[in-house]
């Protein structure tokens, strides 16, 4: 799992290749389980030492002491912490994270509602990152030291350096308020509320399946800005890694041989060199995708995007620890899962790792 590294030196060196596939799968499942338990334990402990008080979040500032104590009892806050964790853990294993304080609904139901919004955003952002980032990277490598190379590099560095929440605010101001090119914050205009019965919860998908194209375009308009903001980082990352991998390949002997043979440059680049790069890129894309899933909190705040990041943050401020733990575990499992999948894909595609 060397690919857990988040910004440089991705997948270049393998640390300890394991003997067989079966072993690997068990190993990975075990790691997943441990991570799952660890995530819950850490979040749970944090939840219990928070100065925010879940009982207070429910009964409010004006409650009498009697009402407040009754709520503490009802939430089981009087029990020893280990008992509390055990109770929570056993029901969580069965997929029950309890009730959310803020929404008065089961946490699992909330996650079903909020997670697709984040998934939609992160997926689109990764797509933009891939579609724009890879050609950028390849072009930069091929024209090393030329204008386009510098452009890609500077663009990438800005992507790494800009505070996304700030850029989001400014872009909302420019594209929504001043230029009137794009719709404002939120996932879609409210008059589309209830038009489509949520099937997957991914609005673009649901509305397209139902043939509600007005809603589809509206939702697409709404997602353009937040997805672009989020894509900026992933674009920077993917183009940078692509460039670096391509340079490696272009220095290899087989490229020289192909050129000597008189193959057109286009074929040398795309059919030979790029094909080899593709394998390495899988890990990079997977990693950037996983990062976007967890890193969308600030973007969601700025664009009032009802996603899991915003859900967790708001819950945290209101001591809604069931919701925080539920949301964190979902994101954590996704993170590990995506890394695992890209790791497996890498092994399947790369002849050397097979």
């Amino acid at each position, binding site marked *: 799992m060397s690919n857990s590294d988040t*910004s440089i030196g991705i997948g270049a060196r393998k640390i300890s290749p394991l003997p067989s596939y079966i072993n690997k799968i068990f190993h990975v499942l075990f790691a997943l389980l441990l*991570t799952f338990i660890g995530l819950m334990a850490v979040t749970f402990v*944090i*939840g219990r030492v928070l100065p925010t008080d879940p009982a207070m979040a429910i009964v409010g500032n004006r409650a009498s002491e009697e009402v407040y104590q009754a709520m503490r009892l009802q939430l089981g806050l009087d029990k020893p912490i280990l008992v509390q964790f055990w109770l929570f853990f056993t029901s969580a294993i069965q997929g029950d994270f309890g009730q959310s304080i803020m929404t008065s609904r089961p946490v699992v139901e909330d996650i079903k509602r909020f997670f697709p919004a984040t998934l939609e955003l992160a997926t689109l952002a990764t797509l933009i990152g891939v579609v724009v980032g890879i050609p950028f990277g390849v072009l930069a490598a091929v024209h090393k030291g030329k204008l386009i190379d510098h452009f890609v590099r500077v663009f990438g560095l800005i992507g790494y350096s800009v*505070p996304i*929440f700030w850029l989001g605010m400014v872009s909302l101001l420019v594209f929504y308020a001043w230029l009137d090119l794009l719709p404002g914050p939120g996932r879609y205009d409210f008059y589309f509320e209830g038009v489509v019965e949520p099937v997957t919860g991914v609005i673009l998908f649901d509305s397209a399946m139902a043939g509600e194209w007005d809603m589809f375009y509206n939702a697409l308009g709404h997602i353009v800005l937040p997805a672009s903001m989020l894509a900026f980082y992933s674009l920077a990352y993917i183009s940078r890694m692509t460039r670096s991998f391509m340079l*490696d390949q272009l220095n290899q002997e087989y490229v020289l041989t192909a050129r000597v043979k008189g193959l057109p440059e286009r074929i040398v680049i795309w059919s030979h060199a790029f094909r080899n790069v593709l394998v390495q890129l899988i890990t990079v894309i997977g990693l950037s995708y996983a990062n976007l899933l967890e890193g969308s909190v600030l973007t969601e705040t700025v664009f009032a995007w009802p996603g899991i*990041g915003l859900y967790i943050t708001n819950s945290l401020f209101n001591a809604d620890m069931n919701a925080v733990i539920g949301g964190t575990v979902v994101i954590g499992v996704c993170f590990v899962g995506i890394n695992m999948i890209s790791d497996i894909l890498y092994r399947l595609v790369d002849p050397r790792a097979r």
Partner: protein
Amino acid sequence: MALLDTNNAKTGGLRNWLLSDSPTNAFQARAQRFYISWLSFRVNPIAMMGLFIVGSLVVVAILAPWLTGGEGIEQNLTNRLKAPDKEHWFGTDELGRDIYDRIIWGSRVTLYIVFLVSIIVMPIGLLIGTIAGYMGGWVDTILMRITDIFLAFPRLILALAFVSALGPGLENAIIAIAVTTWSPYARLARAEALTVRNSEYILAAEIQGASTLRIVVAHVVPMCLPSIIVRLTLDMAGIILTAAGLGFLGLGAQPPLPEWGVMIATGRDFLLDQWWISTIPGFAILLASMGFNLLGDGLRDVLDPRSGDDG
């Protein structure tokens, strides 16, 4: 002793001493390695640009009292929300404080965060990683499982949770950022430790009866340092951005401290009419993290050429 050597070498000129083919002691060897790195660093325009930005940041932070007319916290309610002009280069904010002053003093806050996070993260990551890598076995397994859990955690959310638990504030934000950033360093250090653990000089040290701690600290850690430093420099931009994000969410620095992320958050309410309040600190963050990114890029080219030809 080192001083003496330097004086002796002066006879042949410092440059000769630094470039001599046969260094006479460890100090000279180290100085040489450093000097040669510097030579290649110096010709790298990107790296020099980064060094320039980071250097200016440091200078501005040090000279803050002389560059400004106050401490950036003096209120003037009759002079609030003024657009940039000759008197207030970057305008004034909602409490009539000079934004130029606040930006300048804010550079101290930013550097303070970066510095503290670095000196917390580096030893923790190094120690856990090198011990795991060097000792192997169950120690490795346990330490790496813990590391994996922290790696799998949604970073910003973990940081948020930690700050909420510790109470909002600059120092707590720094601790929270450190808690969420040490894990990749442990991974990196472990990987480096694995490559050196069977080296002959380590075996030699073991035979001489050196303790595990001594071997790790004296022989393994120094080998892991370059890649950790490169990684840290590249991460500094991320640290700045995370700290600003925490400030933006109200969990970082508390008023009246002029932290740039907090300034953006405050300016948010004024974005439509008084754009300068949040736009200017945004640029300040962009510039500072850009500086660290450029510097890190350059450092990597120089110190750690294995990790890909990115320059």
